């Protein structure tokens, strides 16, 4: 055939048609856009919710896996996969029976053996799980639907530990997956939860697709927090990873996505004035910002210097640096968070609106501070740390402290924070971090409230009197007893200053008004119960 303009034109049309055929075929099997919700969260870098303790992976876990127990909106544990359960008279043996209708996404039934293996794997890494494994005499299956946990001593918090939502949460995995070590990543994504992970549409770093699990049998109760019936009301949910915040917001405005988990603070007023958008707070407990001090090196090896930091911080000013809208920030003085069941005001006389720089200067002097360099690890890819560290350095310099910023990305900070040596040898003196307010109310979930020296979290605070009280936490039976214990512990903590609180931030999410039924809980946004109406 001669190459003519006409033939070339015909060939072009034919090629275009041929390339379009796959999309036509695919369109016939795809859920409609009206039944698909597109969400922008963080990038889902890791899929195994036990291997990592990040919130986004726990979010993924909540979609495709199920849990034995789940917290309701009042943070009370309720049975989820468990149908019936009971405890022996001596309170040492718990028996759990799985409810009917539980099945894996590969079509096989969920068994008690899966649950036992999952508890053992989770028990290697979760603080609550580690305590359970220490206290457990035996964890074994009785039959396909029943398993028991036999304890050496009664553990009043056992059900709370199993239901806790601080990552890594106890997600039930298939026995063959859960048999891997907790430090080895599970490579399959087969759960028994209300959503199935769509492997064919996986684009690592770009998008993650979840389809409704049509075989899932929800509980009969109404949804309440993570508890109750997980009824999925859309066919598909796609998590798009849009790394640029401004682009993500533009996509929300244009209706290309329906949900934005971390809307930029600068756009709050624009969102509030847009008739198509809403800016609700789903996680009312928020995040506490903390300052970790290195107990092993000068000047913070001296309690007076640590107390100086407590008096220096002006929480309102600090949080203004982070979030200009005061509606979303508050001060926090309890080590157990601002709104947990054990939050209290014991020994909080150090708090003064606006801070007390003069007292801080005096305390540094009493600590024998002689102008040595104070290194602040600054994570430049995390706005809170980036801005907060600069503000902190400026405040320290005002009272004569030789503060020096050590900027790096978060990856670099994680390496340097492990260095216990002096600053001359690459060590550090302080860095900013955060923890969910909810998690701070549960000593068995957060490592940030440990004070056992070398075994404690970065900064390595040490106080034996506090640790002796902490050891009693799990065995205390009633909430009133726990509250009393919390007061005593907080009294000691603020005397030796285990860390310094910088304030609390409640982050709203943004979504189009076409989305309804979102469930508000700390850290994780469940995708069941969510509905999409026409625009």
């Amino acid at each position, binding site marked *: 055939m001669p190459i003519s303009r006409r033939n070339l034109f015909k060939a072009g049309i034919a090629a275009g048609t041929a390339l379009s055929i796959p*999309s036509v075929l695919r369109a016939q099997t795809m859920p409609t856009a009206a039944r698909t919700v597109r969400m922008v969260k963080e990038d889902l*870098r890791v899929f195994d919710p036990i291997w990592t303790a990040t919130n986004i992976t726990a979010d993924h876990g909540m979609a495709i896996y199920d849990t034995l127990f789940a917290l309701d909106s009042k943070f009370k544990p309720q049975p989820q996969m468990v149908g019936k359960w009971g405890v022996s008279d001596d309170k040492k043996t718990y028996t759990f029976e799985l409810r009917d209708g539980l099945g894996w996404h590969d079509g096989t039934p969920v068994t008690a053996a899966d649950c036992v293996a999952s508890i053992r794997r989770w028990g290697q890494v979760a603080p609550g799980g580690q305590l359970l494994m220490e206290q457990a005499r035996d964890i074994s299956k009785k039959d396909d639907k029943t398993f028991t946990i036999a304890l050496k001593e009664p553990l009043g918090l056992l059900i709370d530990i199993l239901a806790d939502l601080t990552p890594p949460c106890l997600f039930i995995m298939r026995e063959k997956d859960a048999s891997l070590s907790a430090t080895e*990543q599970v490579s399959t994504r087969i759960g028994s939860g209300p959503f199935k992970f769509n492997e064919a549409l996986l684009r690592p770093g770009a998008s993650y697709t979840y389809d409704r699990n049509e075989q899932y049998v929800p509980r009969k109760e109404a949804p309440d927090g993570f508890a109750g019936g997980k009824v999925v009301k859309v066919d598909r949910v796609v998590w798009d*990873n849009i790394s640029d915040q401004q*682009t993500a917001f533009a996509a929300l405005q244009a209706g290309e996505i329906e949900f934005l988990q971390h809307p930029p603070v600068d756009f709050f007023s624009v969102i509030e004035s847009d008739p198509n958008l809403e800016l609700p707070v789903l996680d009312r407990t928020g995040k506490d910002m903390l300052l970790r001090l290195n107990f092993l090196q000068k000047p913070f090896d001296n309690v007076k210097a640590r107390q100086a930091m407590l008096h220096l911080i002006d929480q309102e000013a600090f949080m203004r640096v982070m979030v200009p809208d005061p509606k979303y920030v508050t001060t926090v003085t309890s080590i157990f968070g601002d709104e947990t069941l054990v939050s209290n005001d014991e020994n909080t006389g150090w708090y003064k609106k606006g801070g007390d720089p003069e007292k801080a200067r005096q305390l540094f002097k009493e600590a024998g501070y002689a102008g040595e360099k104070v290194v602040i690890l600054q994570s430049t890819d995390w706005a809170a740390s980036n801005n907060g560290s600069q503000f902190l350095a400026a405040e320290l310099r005002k009272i004569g402290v030789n503060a020096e910023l050590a900027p790096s990305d978060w990856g670099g900070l994680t*390496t340097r924070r492990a260095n216990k040596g002096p600053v001359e040898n690459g060590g550090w003196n302080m860095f900013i971090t955060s923890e969910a307010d909810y998690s701070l109310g549960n000593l068995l979930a957060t490592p940030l409230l440990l004070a056992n020296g070398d075994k404690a979290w970065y900064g390595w605070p040490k106080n034996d009197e506090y640790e002796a009280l902490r050891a009693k936490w799990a065995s205390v039976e009633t909430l009133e007893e726990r509250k009393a214990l919390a007061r005593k512990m907080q009294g000691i903590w603020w005397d030796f200053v285990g860390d310094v609180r910088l304030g609390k931030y409640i982050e709203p999410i943004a979504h189009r008004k076409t989305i309804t039924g979102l469930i508000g809980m700390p850290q994780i946004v469940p995708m069941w119960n969510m509905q999409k109406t026409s625009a």
Partner: protein
Amino acid sequence: MAAYILRRLVSTVAVMAIVGIFIFLLLRLAPGDPAAIIAGRSATEEIIAGIREQLGLNDPMPVQFLRWVRDMLGGDFGTSIFAGRPVLELISQRLEPTLSLSILTMILAVTVGVSFGILAAWRTGGIVDRLLAAFSALGYSVPVFVSGYFLIYFFAIRTHWLPVQGYVPIDSGLGPWFVHLILPTVALSLAYIAFIARVTRASMLEVLSEDYMRTAAAKGASSYAMLFHHALKNAGVPILTVIGISFAYLIGGVVLTETVFNIPGIGRLVVDAINNRDYPIIQSVLILTSGLYVLVNLTIDLAYTLIDPRIRY
């Protein structure tokens, strides 16, 4: 010619080897721990240590290096620490968006840039020449995140004519694929149009002032013949060089555009990998990109022989 090509291919392997050693050392000596990033912000040292051991990051550096070289020589570029998938699979997923954006950008930039350059050279000091000077200043000085957001605002948010972001694979339909690439292509090509137009103008001006051009004009050659048969052919070598280098640069240098328009390409893959310290991805992409640079340069050198018969290897 064959000996020349062989020599250049051997040098490509040498370049890739040097880049490999350099990148491996740089990554291992730079601060950052993938295990700590995997474990999460509040993870304990004990958990991080367990993950590090499992990933083989505690092995001595020479052991890690030899393992990597051995695997790569066997065609195994490793597995992403985070995604748990073969690196080559991840790269191949990201190659299509980057190549699509790069090719469309080059088509637009060459078509508009060369045309602008020829017109400006033909009528030096005229309106087209002045417009080109103004456009070049704009194209060079406006970064892609400014032009990108500007385009998004007008053509996606205000008018809803085009999508804000995202990429649709070509096998999902030519129409959606093209529509999603219009804004990023325009935003990215501005600087390249300015660059290619300036180089074309300068090369053409130089050739147009040659004696043989005056002779052609004296012999009554038409403007078309003078510009395209005589001038452009002789001005082609520097233009081709610029186009080739631009294309090679585009493959690895479209990070900002991919970020602004949320295109899951090679640039974003590398940036995410650097943030996560996903060593196998960073190493593989940089090695392959260095090889690509050398091969593109080789192709340009060979293409010189097509437009200038005096060049022989």
